[in-house]
């Protein structure tokens, strides 16, 4: 699918991109900016699709990357997921969206609240209604929000139940060395909101200990000044779902890691294969249970298959990507989850150390 602004560029520029794609071992390895003799290809990789922008002149690459991500976000917002088939199905809406979002290579309207007023998101009900009444899902009036100084909120919002939900997501990222001590750990947190309030609500959110945040970033609706002077989030929220802020608690502060892993893994060269024994345990949970634990181990290429036994959850091993995934589920303190078994190896390949990375949610 292609859309041109400014002048038409032949599809063949993508060949450069495909070249790189072929060379790269994984889709993540493709550099985001590819310079060709006359054009620059800037791409992002989201939900196993590449979105490639072609530009001819100097432009801040992050500008383009951010925009492409925003495009994908908008698609996800409209179609609830963004896959190849969905985009193919809704190509007209996609085209209309792109047309609104970009004009002559410069972003026009990227706030989803505005876009939704211009182009109604498709749903079955509306599709039926449209075919019956002959109405279209393109609005004929300019959304008023575009003109106000709060462009992110549409006007005339009405709800019978006024609700606001805040979702706090925290990710702990840690590197732990062989002996189990933490090399570095940091927390990335997000506050996602779902606000369904009528009119023009002005909200403020205060934190018990705002000093904890090392660094924060906000949705444009947040008033910087209030935050700077009082550490209070004061904002007029957009309608619907959005990410209010994200924060970062860096490696300087002490981060409690909720789980520990006791592992023994040896891969021997002989035909008998290696052994794997991993035990998970909770750590400093303050009485809360840990759920949805997933353990992923990218195995070295020489591993052929795994014959493992778990006392909890189930494991899968993908022989193509060599990824061992163990879905543990809830960690019970009395009976620590454990996985053990043998790993069969391709003979003759050198043993390599495995780097387990753990994803806890």
């Amino acid at each position, binding site marked *: 699918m*292609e859309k*041109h*602004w*400014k*002048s*038409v560029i032949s599809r063949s520029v993508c060949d450069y991109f495909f070249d790189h794609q072929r060379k790269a*071992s994984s889709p993540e390895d493709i*550099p985001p*900016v590819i310079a060709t003799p006359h054009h*620059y290809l800037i791409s992002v*990789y989201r939900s196993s699709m590449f979105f490639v922008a072609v*530009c*001819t*002149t*100097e*432009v*801040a*690459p*992050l500008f383009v990357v*951010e*925009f492409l*991500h925003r495009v994908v976000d908008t698609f996800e917002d409209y179609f609830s997921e963004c896959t190849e088939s969905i985009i193919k199905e809704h*190509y*007209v809406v996609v085209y209309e969206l792109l*047309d609104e979002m970009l*004009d*002559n290579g*410069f*972003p026009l309207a*990227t706030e989803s609240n505005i876009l939704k007023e211009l182009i109604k998101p498709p749903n079955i009900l509306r599709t039926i209604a449209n075919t019956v009444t002959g109405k*279209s*899902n*393109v*609005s*004929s009036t*300019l959304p008023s929000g575009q*003109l106000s*100084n709060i*462009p992110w909120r549409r006007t005339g919002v009405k709800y019978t139940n006024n609700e606001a939900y805040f979702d706090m997501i925290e990710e702990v*990222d840690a*590197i732990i*060395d*062989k002996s189990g001590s933490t*090399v*570095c750990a940091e927390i990335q947190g997000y506050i996602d909101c779902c606000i369904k309030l009528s009119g023009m609500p002005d909200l403020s959110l205060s934190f018990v200990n705002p000093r904890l945040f*090392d*660094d*924060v*970033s*906000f949705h*444009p609706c947040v008033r910087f000044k209030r935050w700077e*002077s009082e550490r209070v989030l004061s904002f007029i929220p957009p309608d619907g779902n959005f*990410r209010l802020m994200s924060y*970062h608690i860096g490696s*300087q502060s002490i981060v409690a890691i909720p789980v520990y892993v006791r592992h023994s893994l040896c891969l021997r060269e002989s035909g008998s294969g290696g052994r794997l024994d991993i035990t998970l345990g909770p750590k400093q949970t303050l009485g809360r249970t840990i759920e949805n634990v997933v353990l992923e181990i*990218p195995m*070295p290429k020489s591993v052929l298959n795994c014959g493992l036994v778990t006392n909890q959850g189930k494991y899968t091993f993908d022989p193509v990507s060599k990824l061992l995934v163990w879905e543990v589920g809830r960690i019970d303190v009395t009976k620590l989850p454990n996985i053990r078994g043998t790993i069969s190896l391709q003979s003759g390949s050198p043993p390599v*150390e495995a*780097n387990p*990375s753990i994803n806890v949610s």
Partner: protein
Amino acid sequence: MYAPGVNSSTTLSSSSSYNNDRPPSAEAVEVATDPASGGFFNSDYKKHDDLKQMLDSNKDNLKLEAMKRIIGMVAKGREASDLFPAVVKNVVSKNIEVKKLVYVYLVRYAEEQQDLALLSISTFQRALKDPNQLIRASALRVLSSIRVTMIVPIVMLAIKDAAADMSPYVRKTAAHAIPKLYSLDQDQKEELIQVLEKLLYDKTTLVVGSAVMAFEEVCPERIDLIHKNFRKLCSLLVDVDEWGQVVIINMLTRYARSQFTDPNLQDVDEDEESKRPFYEDENEVEEEQQEKRAPTLDPDHRLLLRSAKPLLQSRNAAVVLSVAQLYHHTAPRSEVHQVAKAMIRLLRSHREVQDIVLTSIAATATRRKVMFEPFLKSFFVRSSDATHIKLLKLEILTSLATESSVGIILRELQTYVAAHDPPFVAAAIQAIGRCASNIKEVTDTCLNGLVSLLSNKDQAVVAESVVVIKKLLQTQPSAHREIIIQMAKLVDSVTVPQARASILWLLGEYSERVPKIAPDVLRKMAKTFTSEEDIVKLQVMTLAVKLCLTNPKQTKLLCQYVLQLAKYDQNYDLRDRARFLRHIIFPADAESGGPTRLSKQAKKIFLAPKPAPVPESHFKDREQFQLGSLSHYINTKANGYQELPPFPLEAPDPKARDVETEPQVMEQAPLFTAKKVSSKKDSTFYSDTESPEDESEEDENSSDEDDDDDEEEEASSSDKDDDDNEDEESSGLEEKLPIKVVKSTAKPKSDEEEEEDESDEEDSSSESVSDSDSEDESSEPSSVPKKQVRNAKPAKESTPVAKPKSNLDLLLDLDDVSPAFTPIMTPSLGGFLTPMSTPSSQVKTQLFPDIQPASAVISPNTTSELLNKINSNGLEIKYRFTRSPHLYSPSMASAELTFHNHGPDELTDIRVGEKPTSGGVSIHDFAPIPSLSPGSSLMGTIGVDFADSTQPVNFEIKIGSDRTYPVALKVPVGEVIRAVAMSEELFLKQQGGLRGMNENTAKLSLTKPCTDLKSLTNKILTVANLGVIPNSDSSTLRFAAQTLSSKSTVLVSLLSSDNQNLTITVNCEKMVIGSMLITQLKACLAD
């Protein structure tokens, strides 16, 4: 999706033309939409017939369906241009969605079908007048996107109209259309710039971003267009949409680089820092010291940095990075580190963002280690990172390594070596090598570690280690005989050519340390020579030659053999090398009859000590590009890259940024430059003896050195445009200027221009003050009333000669600052056409040209309450007269207002409400206060023209939208007059003219005898704003002043017959003032 109805279209195609008025029969249409009718077998040329059919129908949903399918084709990149005529007709469609899709199609194909595209133009022209702003905007958007040269004039007209549209959305679209038209027709540039200029003046956040974008595309070199908008852009920056922010910040970075001086000028050269990484810490200390005495930033520069800073917290990575680059390129060194944290945060974003941010960090880190050192751990590699991100992180880790942190880094690197990602492992080993050679303390440890890697099972690891060790050994070969031996042994096992070549080179270079092994290795290599890679073969030859020179006995034959083999190699490089070496080592004895000169020197040629390679970051040379730009990322100049100008040595005129929205004033703007240029010439007028060339330099010194007040203290004109010699010193002086103040010359001048000078003087001082003040208040709308501009003396316009002096005057007399006289400024009013006096008063003052305003010696500290906190629920306003002329008009007394919020709530929007209009009394408002948080206070300045009366002036203070409080500003009689200076004779002469009714005399005896006339003077000056007259008679004190509004002279004389008894005489035209003043003076002296 693909549902063509062939059956019907084939039947109809013969009869229907595009302009067929007859609507297709209902049946035919129905068949056409029936997907079951199937059409996969129709031939290509008829393929679109059904679509045309549907487009011709009169049903919107059919048209829509057809358009959707056409758009589908366009989207897939399939040719759909043959449908153009059928589609274009539908541009008039009422259905907005059909219309939209037609627009999309039109934009795509208009260039190919120019003639037909013209058919649609009239529709757009009609749409441009549509009352719906969305339709106006989209019509302009499409119209400007149609790339047909013929319509350029139409588009031009449309843009001009749209730029003046009511709706900001349409204006935004107009801004977008400008670069489109520009790319279509470059000749329109001048006209487009005019439109653009108008758009840049726009105050709507919606428009500004797009206007700057257009500016960047059309005329990035016209930096002069930005001057007037600079402050506005800064203040609006936070509210502009994210994309606009990026463009604006990038543009302002360039602007700052061209308009402000380098804030790091006095710091150590940054290159030095990176050249000597070992002395890093010492440098930092130095830097810090230097920062303390760093020159003050231009207030505008500061404003830019300050308004950009909150954007570091934007969710948009592009905005954050653009702020980071702004700081990197323009901020003083002590402030750059603020951006580090935000950049680290971006590392948690998408992979692509990470990659670009890391590239920027890598480039920055080579120069500013300190900045990222606290975040070292954030660059530790995660196993889930993509390879190119891992490599970038490694790069950064190595650049950041210092003695203190190298331990941690090396431990990490050690772990990385065990990873299973070959390029990453190789990079990790190289990183170890770089750490080792950069930080002497760890070289040995690293070397040992690398040697142990030699026994690693992975070929690639071994090979990479060999290469790195080779480089390391070059730095200190003496101590490492064992390592060389061990490496020599590896020749048998290592297969990677690069590694083999490195080993051979090492052996050759240090063969004297391993005299036994080297020839043996050469022997082995000679055996396998033919099967080696080219790079290895070259090194075998080098080794052979070197050994032949050091140990000819054992190796001469071997060497000859190797060269012989190389002579017949397939690679011409090798053959060439062999021939070249042979002639040096084994000169053709037969012909020359002895060793040639070259062969004698062979040892020197081949065994010369070679400098060790210095491993450098390959991000080092990226400094030339603007951080975060495409060119920076790909490290080559991208098409259309705007180079970042170096800082100017001296800042261009900051006055250019003064905001004057009054069109009349703007037209005058060129005068500023004219003034500057000529000021130097005019300076001879004041400095009698010095030649104009010497003057400026000498003056710079004198103004710094002696601050004593002579008759005419001269300061440099510091005319930046002319003066090339100006150095930092003078630019420092330049910065101080605005705070310094005009003091009127004491020397009387008799020419008529005096008055001119005076007013100009104040004007220019107001301008310069506005530079420093307006930082806070620049957003305040300017409101120079037009009427007053016209009132400006005609003389002013007729004697332009006088104008050039004004700048100079300001500078000439600056000295001996009396803070009371500092003109207080409501910034936008400092335009130099601001009238200084009404015509009537001029006539009066010109009668006595020798009377000049003088600065008040004492400014009273007594404050009075204007608004009580109890009355106003918390807001307390106090006022104090500053005795400085208000800049809005000299007939106004300026009072300093102190606002204090005692209440619990924040007060917003405090401003002056209703004002008196009658009786010649007028008020110039203080700058409205947007908000006052509880417990805080703010200052403001209000100007009041009391019309020479002491009646309290009543007006209203408004808070928010609904609270209004009447207040009364009382003025003591001593404040409605202004001190003047005059000579004693003049005083007596004037006094003689003001006898009788105009004279008030009072006698009083002091309670305690006064010995000191000075304390008496002080007492009097506290009460009234009077100027002291130089006196020949010791028993008399004389003071003079003028009333503010009508400029009537007020003369006070104090005769003390003895120490106890005083006679006060007040002569004043205004009898009321006179009598009030004498009462007040009496009261104060009696105390």
